């Protein structure tokens, strides 16, 4: 997993609420057995018409946002299916950070496993960032994970919360499984005790 420290990049505004993972990556692209290559189909049904041509109005098709690294979105981003293809598609497109008033739990977790930082901020602050993002490619938002701040193109800064363990893993690009395996002794002893207490499991 790539480390996440600081990014300064173009933010794309998507003010819609309840953007679900079916929108982020429709099911026909879940038939892959790989993690890579999904960026071209990110938001596929909003981004392309029935003939596969780009829909000019869609934000990521506009010249200013084709290189976006940040998404600013409406409430409850990532709801629905648990498909990790959603963060894979975002990452493959180049998105490293999503800012919204709230996120669905499973999507939120999945982001951290893939080097993407989801940031929940109060609606008023998201509204300010949304306006900033709407300025287009000259407006660059800075996200600093170490300092836990988001800064608009004109220097207005907001602090955000992040779980300390998740922050540590993201800053250092750490593999969860490796970290858990260091605790194998604790799992072994739990398993032995559970097998005695609940032999039917």
């Amino acid at each position, binding site marked *: 997993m790539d480390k996440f420290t600081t990014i300064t990049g173009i933010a794309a505004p998507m003010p819609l609420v309840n953007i679900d993972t079916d929108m982020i990556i429709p099911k026909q692209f*879940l*038939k892959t057995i790989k993690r890579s290559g999904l960026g071209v189909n990110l938001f596929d049904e909003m981004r392309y018409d029935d003939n596969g041509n780009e829909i000019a109005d869609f934000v990521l098709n506009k010249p200013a946002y084709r290189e976006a690294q940040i998404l600013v979105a409406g409430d409850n981003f990532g709801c629905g*299916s*648990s498909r990790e293809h959603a963060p894979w598609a975002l990452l493959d497109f180049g998105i490293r950070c999503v800012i919204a008033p709230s996120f669905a739990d499973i999507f939120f977790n999945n982001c951290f*496993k893939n080097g993407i930082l989801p940031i929940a901020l109060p609606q008023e602050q998201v509204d300010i960032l949304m306006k900033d993002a709407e300025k287009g490619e000259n407006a660059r938002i800075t996200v600093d994970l170490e300092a836990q701040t988001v800064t608009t193109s004109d220097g207005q800064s907001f602090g955000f919360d992040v779980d300390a363990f998740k922050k540590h893993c993201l800053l250092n690009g750490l593999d*969860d499984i490796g970290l858990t395996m260091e605790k194998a002794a604790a799992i072994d002893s739990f398993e032995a005790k559970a097998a005695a207490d609940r032999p039917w499991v």
Partner: protein
Amino acid sequence: MTASKTLYDKIWDAHVAHEADDGTCLLYIDRHLVHEVTSPQAFEGLRMTGRTVRAPEKTIAVPDHNVPTTLDRADPATMTEDSRIQVAALDKNAKDFGIHYYPVSDVRQGIVHIVGPEQGWTLPGMTVVCGDSHTATHGAFGALAHGIGTSEVEHVLATQTLIQKKSKNMKVEITGKLRPGVTAKDITLAVIGVTGTAGGTGYVIEYCGEAIRDLSMEGRMTVCNMAIEGGARAGLIAPDQKTYDYVKGRPHAPKGADWDKALEWWQTLYTDEGAHFDKVITLKGEDIAPVVTWGTSPEDVLPITAAVPAPESFKGGKVEAAARSIEYMGLKAGQKLTDIQIDTVFIGSCTNGRIEDLRAAAAILKGKKIKDGLRAMVVPGSGLVRAQAEEEGLAQIFIDAGFEWRLAGCSMCLAMNPDQLAPGERCAATSNRNFEGRQGRGGRTHLMSPAMAAAAAITGHLTDVREMM
């Protein structure tokens, strides 16, 4: 005196294998269910790092999302190349890593959330995970069950644990009795109508109250299945005699002395008097009507007697979302829900693909025909549900009414197999999501109970099933 605990607290406490100073826990996983779509990258990850499956005996796999449901599905030509590859990958991974497996050819194959309980893999007090958000279904047994991403699938395969922080406790109580024509599906949709799709985010919901207790195990699974649609990763219902009766005698349920010991523990799995809930929602059972969705979010729920709402009746970002939904759905504000004409009826899915669901639909359809020109299909949740429905004569009722009688799979719930809506096609569906494009690009989905879907099949428009009872 020990502190009062919720059911969630008790199951959580019994599964913490390690707790760090900041409260990050390793939660031990008792059952790991696996399907073909969200697992290939996880198994590939194990291979690349030289890791193995820590507890293959607790890992159960079944292909369900991609598989065709037509009777000719043994023919590989019924699947697209990429679907074939994905199912073949699961075949190989199950064999290579020595995990329990129900291939497409096995009569026990079906939707993973129907197969787990049916085979007795899901038991009270367990932790159950699957790379699928509808894992919440298993909470009906008083098991802590939730969906995970593929990285977490790999983590559980390798370590049999999940890195977790504890969620908050939410109680959803449904008091009193349901009125005739109102089902578990109406309860779960009505709750989402109240909480919204984000109302449960960060919580584990415990459903309780007389109307919940009165539900069968099948109905309880329907309720818990859609906890995720309210934003909650898991829904729980305390086990009781109905739970034990359902579990007893299933292939992987405990037997003999193990059964007695299990039962003794299961009977302690309830929320103690005075235990703290961070949020409480109470609905009166008699206030719940048969409901349908009108929009593209499961929170867009209204009683069948209502009309399509005006976007301006909402607040904040929902105004724009509602306007977008109404346009996508091809509806008009003020239009009566019962005036909405449909093209297709889909009965099935992990929400409503169990025997009781098929009985409820068949009871409405018996001796009737579906509206001319309508496409209608029943997709049983498992091969065993299908066999039982044939034995009970339900299959013949569906066939006589004009429904297609299919083989088991997820089918048109998410349309990864050939069962899809065409653009603009409108469906009365017993599944769980009405998102844009969910059942096929441009497809329009109205969620409802099996009885309501059957009623719509007969009239060709959304219909109040109570008028047919």
